[in-house]
Each structure stands twice: as structure tokens, then as C-alpha cells.
């Protein structure tokens, strides 16, 4: 989460978890798409297969929460909490606005799994906000 060259132990654990989750996501997504697109599974097994790619994405949120708990450097923790608040604000605001506009048929349907993607993009925005705030305070 931090862009520092040297990582804290908690950051290293976070990076390792995210890497493993990303690999798991790729491993689970393609079989799920293959099986469900071709209707090779049905009934309860279809739900089980369909939820598999969601699990690593849920894991990303767990990893982010675990990082905030495990990070012992309070300044780094403050930065990542602020970064996550920006991400959450962006994702919830966009989801709310899109939901209403979609409801009024002014925007096309967007699958709900787009919102985690917006949240992850929000982490990038949060990094920029952190840099701006830190620069302003220093000035």
C-alpha cells in the first residue's frame, strides 16, 4: 500500500497475501467462466462454482483490514486508513449515483463486481490525496 522502497513487516505480509490472492483469482475465474458460460454445471454446484472467483476478491478486503490491524507504524497506518477512506468514499458515491441513474434507465446496467474495482482504483486516488495533503502540511 505504501510506495516506500523499504517495506515494513506488515507491508511485506500484505504484499505477499495480495500476490497469492491475485494468482488464486486468475486460477478460479477462468474455470468458473468456462463452466458457467457453457452450462456445464447447474443447481447448487453452479452457485458454488460462481462464488469461487469472488472469494479472492473478498480476500483482498480482508488483507487490507489485516494490514491496518498488523501495521505497528502508526504513521504508515494513518496513511493507509486515509487512503482506504478515499477509496470507500469514491466507491460508495459512484455506486449510489450509478444505481439511481441506472434505475431511471439513464445508464446501462453495471455488474456489482465493478464496485470493488472502483474501490481498488480509489486506493490509487487515496495515494494521490495522501501526497497532496502531506505536501500542503509541509508547505
Amino acid at each position, binding site marked *: 500500500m*505504501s510506495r*516506500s522502497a*523499504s517495506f*515494513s513487516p506488515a507491508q511485506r505480509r500484505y504484499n505477499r497475501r495480495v500476490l497469492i490472492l491475485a494468482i488464486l483469482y486468475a486460477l478460479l475465474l477462468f474455470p468458473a467462466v468456462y463452466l458457467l458460460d457453457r452450462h456445464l454445471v447447474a443447481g447448487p454446484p453452479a452457485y458454488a462454482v460462481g462464488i469461487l472467483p469472488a472469494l479472492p476478491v473478498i480476500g483482498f478486503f480482508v488483507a487490507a483490514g489485516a494490514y491496518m490491524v498488523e501495521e*505497528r*507504524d*502508526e*504513521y*504508515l497506518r*494513518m496513511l493507509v486508513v486515509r487512503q482506504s477512506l478515499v477509496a470507500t468514499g469514491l466507491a460508495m458515491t459512484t455506486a449510489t449515483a450509478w444505481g439511481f441513474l441506472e434505475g431511471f434507465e439513464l445508464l446501462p446496467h453495471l455488474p456489482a463486481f465493478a464496485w470493488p474495482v472502483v474501490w481498488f482504483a480509489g486506493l490509487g486516488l487515496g495515494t494521490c490525496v495522501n501526497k497532496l495533503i*502531506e505536501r500542503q*502540511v*509541509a508547505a
Partner: protein
Amino acid sequence: MTNHLRDLRATRGWSQQHLAELLEVSRQSVNAIETGRYDPSLPLAFRIAELFGLAIEQVFVSPSEEK
């Protein structure tokens, strides 16, 4: 919050990295505290003061005294 951390560190000839290692925090944290971008928690402020063998108000300037 204004503080004397940079001066105190300089008198001992310590780098930010060395101070960070002594405090078990990141170098970014030391830099943020020194430049007033981040006010440390009370436990960390006490750790800093104790490391220099000073009272907390000898390291950190009370905001009411800054005015």
C-alpha cells in the same frame, strides 16, 4: 505540532534512519514528525522523549505556547 526533534537528532549525529531504528518506526514516520506533518500518539511521543532523556515538553512544543 512544532518540535525539536531535528535539532536533538543532529546534536547526537543520528540519521533519520538510525533514529527510526531506535524507535522501531519507519524513516518516513521520523521525517513526518520532524517536519510537523504528523503528530505522534502519546505513547510514541513519550518513547521519543525518553530516548533523548528529556521531558515530553522539551521535545514537543505545546500548540498553546506556539501562539
